[in-house]
Structure formats: structure tokens, C-alpha cells
């Protein structure tokens, strides 16, 4: 069973790694963030599969941390992007 679980982790990682081609191709930053998002989810799945294969219970906590922080980069990116688009100026520049 352990061998199968590791194999599944390898397959999922290989798949999401192919998705990283989107980081190379773009065209926009949003597409790149999407690829990172996909790899984040794939990473959570891989950590869980490897943890089940090795029987190490603590790996679930790593997956938990990844899951909690998975979308933070995307939030920060959108926030910065929207801030720029609406012309939100830094106060230092406006005075």
C-alpha cells in the first residue's frame, strides 16, 4: 500500500509540475498565480499521501499549515494589484 501511495504522490506532483508551464508562458501574472495555487493544492495532497505512506502522523500538521497559508500569496497579489489599479497612492507621495 505504501508503494502505491508514494506512486500516487509522484503522479500528482508530476501533474501539477506540468501545470508550472503556465508560470513560464503566462501570459499574465494571474495565470502564474493560478499555477502556484494548483501546485499548492497538489503539494497538500502529496504531503498527505507521503504521510499516510510513512505512517508519520505529524505530516498532517504540515498539510494543515500549507492549507491555512495556501491562498495568502494569491490574496496579497490581488490586494496589491487592485490597490494599484484604483490609484491608491502611498501617503508619502501625495503630500
Amino acid at each position, binding site marked *: *500500500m505504501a508503494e*502505491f*501511495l508514494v506512486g*500516487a504522490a509522484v*503522479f*500528482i506532483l508530476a*501533474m*501539477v509540475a*506540468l*501545470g508550472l*508551464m*503556465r508560470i513560464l508562458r503566462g*501570459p*499574465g501574472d*494571474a*495565470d502564474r*498565480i*493560478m*499555477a502556484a*495555487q*494548483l501546485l499548492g*493544492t*497538489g503539494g*497538500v*495532497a502529496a504531503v*498527505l*499521501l507521503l504521510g*499516510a505512506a510513512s505512517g508519520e*502522523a505529524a505530516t*498532517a500538521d504540515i*498539510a*494543515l499549515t500549507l*492549507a*491555512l497559508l*495556501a*491562498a495568502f500569496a*494569491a*490574496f496579497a497579489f*490581488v490586494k496589491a*494589484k*487592485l490597490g494599484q*489599479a484604483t490609484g491608491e497612492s502611498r501617503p508619502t507621495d501625495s503630500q
Partner: protein
Amino acid sequence: MKLFLDLWTLVGVLAGAFFFFAGTVGLLRFPDSLTRLHALSKADNLGLGLVVLGLLPQMDSVAAGIKLVGIWLLVLLSGATAAQWIARTLRQSGPGP
């Protein structure tokens, strides 16, 4: 019983892996950013969900299983929000090619 549980894991994990495959194909092949976003959410929701479902019988305790499901729910919540937010920036700048 052991055989049935292992079979359950096999089917669940394979089905999950398939959705990751589908998500990647969509991310690479779909023509514009919004459709690619759609493909991405499938991997988030179903791919990880099915992997978690498949792994449940392999857990030692009920608490470990609950934690697993909790992780999936967290990814669902933040993934859905991130997708909605990315869509907002896309809409603002107009859908790209």
C-alpha cells in the same frame, strides 16, 4: 475488510489523481484565463477531496481522519476565495487571450 478498505483507498486516490491531471490539462490547454481558473478549481475541490476520502481508511484514529477532512475544507474555503479574487483582477483588466 482490510482488502475492502485498501480497495477504497485505491479507488479514491486514483480518482483524485485523475482530477489533478484534468486540472493541469485545463490549466495548460484552455484558451483564456477565466476558463483556466475553472479547471484549477476542479483540482482544488475534487482532486484533493477524493484523495482525502481515499486516505480516510488508512488513518489510525478518528481524530486523524477529522483533521484530514478539516484540511480539505480549509483548502476549499481559501481556494474558492482566491479563485474569486483572481477572477476580479481578470475582469478589471479584461479577459486576456
